[in-house]
Each structure stands twice: as C-alpha cells, then as structure tokens.
C-alpha cells in the first residue's frame, strides 16, 4: 500500500477489503456515519455503553490469535463487563506505507469472524496510510456501543467486605504468548493467547446473578492491576490465595525461567468477578457450565482492612503485598 493513495484508490481499498469482508447492511451504505433506530436499541435497556481502544500489538499474528480478533474481542469485552450487550463497532485502521494487502485481508477476515462470534456488527470505519516509520505496520482502533441490561449495577465502587473474587480461568497465557512470539525466544511451548469474547459468559453470570458487584477484564497489567483498582475504588482490601489462582504449568514454567509474575501478565479473555459471598457458589457453578468459564475459581475474598491494598496469601501462610506497578517489573530487593 502506498501512502497518500486517497480518493479513488482508498475507496477501492475499503470496498475491496473491509466492506466486502465485513458485509453488513449499515456498513455497505458507505455513509460517513452509521445510523441506528433508537427504539430498537432501547429494547435491550435504557443505558448506552460506549468504549474505545487502540490495538498496537506486535507481532500482528501470534499463537492463538491476531491483532484483528484482538481488536474485536478487546472492545467487546470492555462493553460486556459493564453488563452491556455489545452491538456495534467502528473500525479505524492506520497502516504503515508498504503494508501488504494480503496481510490486511487476513486481518480483516479475522475481524469478521471474531465479530460474528461476538454477535456484533462493524458499522463504520476509516483507513489511513502513513509514511514508513510513522507507524509500526498496522494499528487498529475499535469503538463499540452496547446497551446495558436494566437489571444490573456493576461498578468497581460497589465491593464490600466478605465478597468473593472469582476468575474465569488460567492467567497469563496471552502475555506469555506475546512475549514468546515477540521475543523470538527459542521456547517451544503450546502457550496460546486466551483471546476470546466474554459477552456470553457475562450474560450467563448476570442471568443467574444480576447483583454482581464488580466485573472487569484483566487485560494489561494482569489480575494484579485489576484487583488493585477494585481495592482502591471501593476502599476495601482484597486477599487473594496464591494456591487458588489458576496458572497453567507451561505459563508457570516460562515465568519461572524468565522471572516474570503471571499475575501481572496480560490476558485477553479473562474477567474478574466480584459477588456477594452468598452468590459465590451459584455464580461459580454457572461459569463452570460455560466453555469460557470451565476453569473458573474463587481466588480470594474482600476484607475490610487494610484498605486500598491487595494481599497475596502465599503457601507459607504469610501475606505478601501485591502492589500496582508504577513501571515495568523491576527488582526491588536489595
């Protein structure tokens, strides 16, 4: 692709790749904006959820997923954890001059199938090609709209002492997969990104327990960062039990040798759910019934003090402070 190929060439490109690939009635109108019927939106609820995220992952293709699927699922998940049914996505693409059309088509195809799985439509988009070096290969921004169910009130501020903290499966796979793919480490592993849409799992949870207190997907910064945000927002403490936190053996092994902590590694298909203790088992059972929640575990509890802090109960029986990191993982110990 050449820079500055505006007008007709760009139109052709969009037609060729995105419109054809995504193929839905709103997009194919090729207006400068998508328009929806409000009444039909309101059938789902009376609150609109809007979120946006940019995807700059390197490499573009990695074990288990690629940037296209990630761009869909990431935004779908951000909508889903608010209790929203994700409906429409926008897709804005920045390409580095010289990017292969073939690869772009692969990404678009991947986005299409991800969107289908997630039950969303890509309704408007934009493509820019920039000078070589002005961007790294391909950046994608997606913005999503969803409608929040009327029966839920999910917020990081709602958490109360005694609540249970639940995770839907093993942690760190995405971060480890990316690291291995990017670092070209001579590491033969079967670790794949956990990239998956969570809207249906969220629906399963909310159908059985609409009074979920808080829910967030554990993406960048990993589980440790999400639970720290919870503890700060709700002014409570959270105690996780190390032995209950699921991490697959391979990820454990990689972390051991690389010296990384899986609790800080990124995930793309994991959500942390906080529910009142009386609902914990019900929610857990519901999650187990869903393919994306079959390894769900209760990993900790909310405590009244110390506030704003996450503790990790180690196998030695003492509590370690699991802090939010200011920067990268940097050795602290003297």
């Amino acid at each position, binding site marked *: 692709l050449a820079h500055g190929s505006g007008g007709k060439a760009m139109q052709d490109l969009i037609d060729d790749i995105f419109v054809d690939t995504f193929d839905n009635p709103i997009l194919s109108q090729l207006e400068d904006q998508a328009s929806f019927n409000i009444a039909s939106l309101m059938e789902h609820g009376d609150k609109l959820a809007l979120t946006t995220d940019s995807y700059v992952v390197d490499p573009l293709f990695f074990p288990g997923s690629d940037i296209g699927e990630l761009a869909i699922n990431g935004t779908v998940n951000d909508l889903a954890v608010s209790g929203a049914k994700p409906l429409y996505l926008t897709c804005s693409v920045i390409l580095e001059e010289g990017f292969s059309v073939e690869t772009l088509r692969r990404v678009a195809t991947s986005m299409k199938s991800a969107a289908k799985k997630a039950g969303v439509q890509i309704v408007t988009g934009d493509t820019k090609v920039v000078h070589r070096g002005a961007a790294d290969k391909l950046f994608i921004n997606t913005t999503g709209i969803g409608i929040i169910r009327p029966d839920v009130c999910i917020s990081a501020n709602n958490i109360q002492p005694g609540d249970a903290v639940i995770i839907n499966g093993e942690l760190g796979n995405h971060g480890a997969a990316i*690291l291995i793919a990017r*670092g070209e480490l001579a590491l033969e592993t079967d670790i794949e990104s956990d990239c998956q849409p969570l809207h249906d799992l969220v629906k399963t949870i909310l159908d059985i327990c609409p009074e979920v207190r808080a829910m967030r997907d554990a993406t960048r910064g990993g589980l440790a960062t999400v639970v720290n945000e919870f503890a700060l927002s709700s002014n409570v403490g959270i105690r996780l039990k190390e032995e209950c936190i699921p991490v697959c053996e391979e990820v454990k092994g990689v972390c051991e040798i*690389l010296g990384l902590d899986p609790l800080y590694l990124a995930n793309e298909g994991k959500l942390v759910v906080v529910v009142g203790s009386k609902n914990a088992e019900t929610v857990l059972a519901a999650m187990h019934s869903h393919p994306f929640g079959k390894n769900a575990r209760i990993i900790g509890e909310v405590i009244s003090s*110390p506030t704003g802090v996450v503790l990790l109960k*180690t196998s030695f029986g*003492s509590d370690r402070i699991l802090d939010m990191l200011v920067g990268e993982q940097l050795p*602290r110990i*003297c």
Partner: protein
Amino acid sequence: MPIEEIRICGTVQGVGFRPTVYRLAKACELKGNICNDGEGVLIQASGSKTSIEKFIHRLYAECPPLAKIDRLKRTPYQGKFDYDDFVISDSITTKVKTEIAPDAATCPQCQKEVFDPLSRYYRYPFTNCTNCGPRLSIIRAIPYDRDNTSMAAFSMCPQCKQEYNDVTNRRFHAQPVACYTCGPQVWLERADGKPITAAMFSMVDDIDAVCSLLQKGEIVAIKGLSGFHIACDATNEAVVQKLRDRKRRVRKPFALMARDIKIIEKYCILNPKERELLESPAAPIVLLGIREWGLGNGNREISSQEKFPAIAKSVAPGQNTLGFMLPYTPLHHLILRRMERPIVLTSGNISDEPQCIDNNEAKTKLNKIADYFIFHNRDILNRVDDSVVRVVNDNSKGNTQSKRLLTLRRARGYAPAPLNLPPGFKKVAPILGMGGELKNTFCLLQNGRAVLSQYLGDLENAATFQAYQEALHLYLNLFEHHPKIIAIDKHPEYLSSKLGKELANANQIKLENIQHHHAHIAACMAENNIPLNTSPILGIALDGLGYGEDETIWGGEFLLVDYRQFTRLATFKPIAMIGGEKAIYQPWRNTYAHLISDFNWQELEQKYSNLEIINFLESKPLFLLNQLQQKQINSPLASSVGRLFDAVAAAIGICPEECSYEGQAAIEMEALINNKNLENCEKNQTYPFQIKNLDKIYYMDPHPMWKALLNDLQFHVGQQIIATKFHLSLANAITRIVDLLRQKYPIDRVALTGGVFQNKTLLQQTTRYLSSLGIKILTHSLIPPNDSNLSLGQIVIAAARNVKEKS
C-alpha cells in the same frame, strides 16, 4: 557559698537520673534542687567550690546505667535561692520532652533479688527498676508515665507504691514497677488446648516447668519483653530440625540464648568486647566465632574436661559463627536457671511476618509450631526484635587489638535512643525519612538529633508493612514530630517511597527523592560526625541493589559526595540480572551472566568441561537465557557487588540453585574463611580485577578475576582458599581504584557502607589496605551498614539541601 546552675542534656529522664543527682548532692552536702524540663534536667546547687566539683565528678562517674550525659553546662546563678536542703522539684510544666529510652536487660541488683528467697521479688518474672526493664515495648503515648504504658492495667500495691515514691530507692519513679501481689502474671498452656495438670511437672512453678519441657525436647513459645519467641534445646538435633520443618525455615541460622557466659564460652571464643556487649543493658545477639569443637560432629571428647553436648548442626548450617544472647528479663533468667545447655530462641512468627506480640494472635499463628506456650498478661505495645551485632577489628587505627562494634540489626536495647547529628544540623526543620524496602527503618530529624526507628523488616510482607505504618504513627506521636519534609528513596516501587509520596501529597509536605547509595554514604558520614558543610568525601557503597540516578540498578558505587550532592566516579561493570528479581534468589543466574559477559561460552564449556559449575549451568535453558539477555527482556543491568558475591559463591558450589534467605550465598562464603587461610593467601597472588574507563567513569571489570578463579577450580583449589582469595582480591581492587581516584580528586577520607560491608573479612581487609594509603576510613558501628541506614541518610541529605546556605 557560690551557687551554680547546671544544665544537663542527654538521656537523663526516666532513667533514674534525678535520684542519682539527689543522692550525690546529699553526699556532697549541696543545697538546691533538680527538675526535669524540656531540655533535660536543670540543677541549682549551692555548696563549696570543691564540693560542687566533687559532685560533678561523681555525677559522671556514677551516672546511672541507662542515662547518658551529652552536654553539661555550668553557669553562676544569681536568681532567687532559698533551699536549706537538696530536693527534687516537680517537672517544670513547659513541655517536658521525656526521652523514650530503649528496653534494658535486667540489672544485676534485680537479678539478685529475683533469686533471693528472702526478697519480695523472689522468682517474680517482671522485676525491674530504674536501671532496667521495659521502656519502648510498653509505651503507648507520652509523657512516659505508667498511665501511658501497658502497666496502666495494674495498680501498685502499697509496698510497690512506697518504693516508687522513695527517692532513695532504686525503683523511684520506675514506671513498670510491680510485684507478685500487684503486677502481671505468667502461665503455661498447651498448644493443643488440653489442660496442664500440676502433676505433670514436679516443678516450682509454670516458668520452671518450661525448663523441664525444653530439656525433654519440646518446642515452647515464650512471650518475652517485646515479642514472642520460640524456644527449644539447641543441642537436640531432632527438635531443632523439627522446629525448622514447622517454621519452614530451611537454613537461616537460629539465635541462641544461654544462662551465662560460661556456657557460651564452651562453644565460642569470646574477646572482651564481645563479653561486654553480651552483658550490656542492650543484651543483643552477638555473632561469635565457633570454637572448632563447638559444632563438631557431636564429638565431645576433644580437649574438654567438662562434658557438654555439641550444638545441633541444624542450628546454623554453613556458618562459622553462632548468634548468642544472654537472658535479658527475669522470665528468661528463671527459665534458664536449671538449664546447662543453650537454647534456640528464634522469633515467634510465621515465615516472613513480624513476631507475634499478642496472646491470641500467637495462639492462632504459632500453634502449629510450638507445643506449649508461656503467656503473660502485660501487653506488648511495640514490637521490637532482638538486635544483632558483631565485633570487628578496627584496623583503621593501625592497631589490630582495637575492637569495634558493628551493628547488623538495630532494635531492642538500642532503639529509639536518639543520635546526635554532626555540626550544622541543629537548626533544621523536622524531617521524616521513610527508609528503603528491605530491613526497613524510618528516621525522624528533630532538634539536631536523629531518632532512628527499630528494625522493622521487609515491607513487601503485608504484616510488616502494617507494622511499619503503626510504628511510624507511634513515633510521630511520641516525639511530637510534624515533618516539614519527607525524604524517600528514588525507587518508584518501594512501598516506603509510595507511602512517603502519599503522605507528602495528603499533607502538602515537601518531598525529597534521595538516591539509594548517596543515602548509604550520608548515613555513614552522619554517624562519623562529619559536619554539614564538609568538603567532599569518597563514599564506597557496595550492596545488592539500589535505584540508580540513570534509572538502572546500582550496587557497587564509588561516589564523591557531600551531604547535598554526589558525583559517580567509579562503579562495577554492569552485568545483566537475567530474569530480574529471580537473580536475587538463584545465584547461578549471576554466575552465568558474569561468565557470558566476557567469555565465549563455547570455549568455556570446552576448556572447563569437567567443572561442576559449568555442568550445572549446562543443565539450564541457556539458549533462552541468552536471548533474554540479548533482547533485554527482564534482564536489567546492575553494577551490583552483592550479585558478584552470589556469582562467585555459586561458582564454587555454595547454594548455586537457590538461596533460602537473603544474602545466604555471600554469608556462607564468608563463613568459609579462617585466619590461617587469610594469612596464607595474603602472601600469595590474589585474583586481578581490571580497572577500565567507561563514559568518563571508571569501572571494575571482574573478567581477569574469573579467569584466575576458573583456573583455580580446574586445579582443584579448595572452596575455602578460593573464597579467601576472592575477599582479599576485592579489598585489593577497591584499594587500587581509590588510589587511582585520589590522583584526580582530593580524597583523604573514605566512607565504607552498604550491605556488603556487613562482611567482616571484606570490611577489615579493605580498612587495613586503605589505611595503609594514609586515608582516613569512616565505617559504621551503631548504625547498620545495610539498608536499615537509608532513612538516616535520607534525612541528612534532605536537611542539607534545605538548610539556608552556609549558616
């Protein structure tokens, strides 16, 4: 008759100072009075010139054990004076800043009473007087009155009250005074909750029963002065091992307590300084050299006429020292009365947590570790660990007989005694230093003095971090400290730095970021009374890791410093910590990183294919580690001498796989050294380091050292010799670089600091070599060289940066 006003500053309140003055004034036939006030004590005395002189002289000579006279100023008094006797007046109500004294070991008089069947204190485990007993551990608020201590729960019986009010009594105004009738009590419980029947022991009392239990091989949790301990017979291998298993403490040495010095001497060689420390009111754990047969293979026949059992091997695996302390409360004295053998007395905690101080807490946390508990009902309000010290040769004075205290952990018995700061720090606003992350302390600067908290531990542990905040809160109240500046370490992830930032933000207090090694060096300067406006000093700060000025990790620094700033003149070659923090726990990672930094690994493998360490490393996923390092994934560069020690230790086979406690590799390597080897190796060639130039600063390249070391290994040179040679080589290399630097910079004084200088051999050798260059050496003594000193360094640097120029 002349009348004088005598002003005394120092530790003079709550330590029996006024009664002493009273007694001496009477003896010298002086008239007048004494009172406490905000600055210390104030005496007005009238008498003949000679009797006043005699009084002053005796006051210094007979100063009570816990008191310390810092300044004594005499001026002629002209005001109103109408005393026809000598009296103790009430404290002047202008804010009395009662000093909070450290806890002190039972004094000889109280000991005597405790074992005197005719004394009313006979076998009373809480006997104390103004010369001894609890202080910091039982205080809740100021002023230091009984009501503000955990003794408030006990009201004095008439007899105690009478002693308390009697000026001539040793217990005059001793706040924790108590006896059987009115004071706290002790009782024994079984960890399994079953009752204890008197018939189980035909012993004097519950305390005496503890001795029998220990002798029988039971593990007993003992509530002590300032925390719970866990005790067992130190000569019973099975029970010591059982304690290790239960505590999940693999190799870290246990502290020991023995009834008296005679028992200690069976196992360790003591010099007079060590004896003095053991018997001092602080009663710290003193690291003592093991007699060759003290830890022999249970081999008792050698040279000993008296029969005594060897210390269990698992008490201190891989060590050449034992950490001993003497009983420091009547409870300990009573427990050990019949005990001819040393006992293990380790802190009562689970893994990295602080010691338990509360009965219920101890019951829940320690009941899987101890079989029995001895409880008491005097609450411990402040947790204070046992202090740890060792004695080193003070080679800087050119006299090897001169001995010097080196504090490794400053806590019970030492904290919170304030340190007088050097000239220039008098008129500085109050400053709070938050300390580091490991071995944390915090420090308050106030009125030209530094109040350094007791050792608080590693903050990453949640309970320790909680304890840190509680102690901080307490000190701020006790010392009525309102900081105008908060000083923190530059490391963005230190919990102390984060908390300092929060406090500064919340209270709109100025924040000062202090570089880690600058703080180490400034602490050493402050301890050595270097004035604020000093000319630059060369500081050598060697440690594990500290956050560097350039956002990389430092740990082998030669900095030209004053209290305000520093210039980095030299360092050690930065080597990757492959796998980041993992390299701290797995010494082999450092060996590998060092070896591949300058060698071709394939060549090494071929040339040294029969070396154990090479084979060991080959079993690791080296290809992967190479890539981590090359692609700079979680492999920060560190100029750390701590890591160099790890690398060398692992290379010669000392815990290459994993350290089970901080510094284990370096500590066990040092333990291999003995005097004979030292002397022998000094004559022979040591390992060379190369001094190179990098970006205008020098750095020490260990490459040639590694070459020589690998050759030694190849020639089957023993572990001990290599360890010795390495220490000597390092001291040598440090000296050479200093010699080089002083040709460019005016260097006449060198400060040695950082955790690496806990190493006695390195400290002594470096001091000796440097002194021979005619350089004055500043080392630590009362303040540990490790990260416990950061908070002190932080406050003096922050002070210097904020004081009005050259006042």
